[in-house]
């Protein structure tokens, strides 16, 4: 266990959560203001449309990074049903490392793409260009998150996020009476 890596991961999670929450709230507020302006005042701002569409990308990348924690990404892991819990645990860190590697390659091509865009984008698209920085930044954050997960010995015991997720809270709210949930 490396305390420094854990501390970095904790800071990264805080940053991802903050950015995800702020961007989603901003998306809601801007979309709502667009509805009001369009329908009541017949006004519309192209820049706001551009911003809201890019905010979806911000939310996507931050959400994807956050869900890496606890290994909760959507998978098609049919084979894991047939292997032991111990083998599953052994597989986790190499899979995280491969994920970090693939995201790093995507980060590289996202940087290349962004630099190309920067060279050729007309003046009218400069705003969108800077918002498009989320592509390289998003993949870099994903790579870093997966890399930290692969380097920290057991993410399930070192998970530093103390907040219950909404799903956990809902499950607690509608807790089944004791005795009704025994494995058969």
């Amino acid at each position, binding site marked *: 266990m490396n305390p420094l890596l854990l501390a970095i991961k904790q800071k990264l999670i805080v940053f991802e959560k903050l950015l995800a929450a702020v961007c989603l709230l901003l998306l809601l507020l801007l*979309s709502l203001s667009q509805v009001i302006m369009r329908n009541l005042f017949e006004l519309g701002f192209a820049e706001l449309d551009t911003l809201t569409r890019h905010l979806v990308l911000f939310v996507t990348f931050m959400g994807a990074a956050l869900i890496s924690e606890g290994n909760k990404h959507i998978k098609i892991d049919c084979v894991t049903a047939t292997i032991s819990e111990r083998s599953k645990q052994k597989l986790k860190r190499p899979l995280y490392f491969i994920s970090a590697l693939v995201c790093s390659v995507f980060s590289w091509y996202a940087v290349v793409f962004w630099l190309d865009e920067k060279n050729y984008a007309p003046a009218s698209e400069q705003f969108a260009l800077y918002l498009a920085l989320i592509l390289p930044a998003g993949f870099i954050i994903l790579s870093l998150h997966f890399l930290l997960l692969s380097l920290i010995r057991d993410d399930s015991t070192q998970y530093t996020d103390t907040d219950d997720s909404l799903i956990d809270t809902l499950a607690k709210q509608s807790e089944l009476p004791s005795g009704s949930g025994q494995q058969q």
Partner: protein
Amino acid sequence: MILLLFIVVLLALLGLPLFIALAAGGLYASYATELNPSILIIELYRLANQPNLMTIPLFTLAGMTMAAGGSPQRLIKLFNALLGWMPGGLAMAAIVACAFFTAFTGASGVTIIALGGLLYPLFMQSNYPERFSLGLLTSSGSLGLLFPPSLAILLYGIVSGTNIDELFLAGIVPGIILLVLLSLYSYKSARHWHKPAHPFSWSVLASAVRESLWDIFLPILVIVGIFGGFVTISEAAAVTAAYALFVEAVVYREIKLLDDLPKILIDTAKLVGSILIILGVAMGLTNILIDTQLPSRLLAFTDSFIHSPLEFLLALNLFLLIIGAMMDIFSAIVVVVPLIMPLAHRYQIDPVHLGIIFLANLEIGYMTPPVGINLFIASQRFGKSILTLFRSAMPFLGIMLIWLLMISYIPALTLWWK
């Protein structure tokens, strides 16, 4: 290179996140076709040009807010007051409440988690057999998938380029038929063993309606808003999310903005991120596959043994049931839809009809092993084995298969409005 592809597939089966497997597949495909891998990023960036994409996070936010704000309890109370007095009434109440709730939460498992835990003890108290109760609750996690503003319909519309308004309209009748079929089965089964827990009471119903009035108004707002032509889908999404927040925070006071809102926003972002990141990376891969004429080759292959739209629909149902049993619904939409769209066009299947068939198959796939997500969530929630739950869900699965055949071969059920 083929070995590399085999390794990626193997790693995916061993638990590599699907979006990473698709990203690796995209890199492989770009190298194999000598295309610059930057094309994968260009395709991903196309997401920012999709005007309807913002509906996904906003409708999800609305669903998450309702879930956190006690909407499940109010809905169960309402539908139990309305239907609970007749044989199988509690089951019918569960079916309608789950469908209502799933339409807003996108069949993401929240329904079984939020409603299942509340309904299961009620079933036990009302002497419903355990097997029936488990089967119903396992199946009900995806019942509202065809009702607006279902996340799956939104995603299908975005990926296939089909009009989302038309998909919403087309899903209503098939969705209602499924609820009726399952309710009839519940009524018939419950006549032998269920004594209604309470007689019908106008005063109880009126009290439940008063309590959940703001919840009931939400789907009305969406349907009237969109089909009445008052708002676009993206506007409806923003209004719905704002309405849900207002109702839960101000009217019911179930949500504290400072304490609960951040948690709701983060959970919404996680759900949205897990789906849209797959869409983003898969867009590049599918585009390369289309460039390599894969759909044309598939077309040539199917032409050799499929000669009519009827045969095509039958083969499609079989194929999608297998896909539904192997893949999560959102991944299946992203990966499979671009490949089957040209085939459906060749056999003159209406894209809206195709969408409803596609989603209905995957709805059934939710409760089919090996990766039917309802089975896994119900297994965790009720502490039963996957096999027990699958066996319990068999009668419901049978009804859903009959329903699937109905909507596949009677296009009028989905296209009545055309």
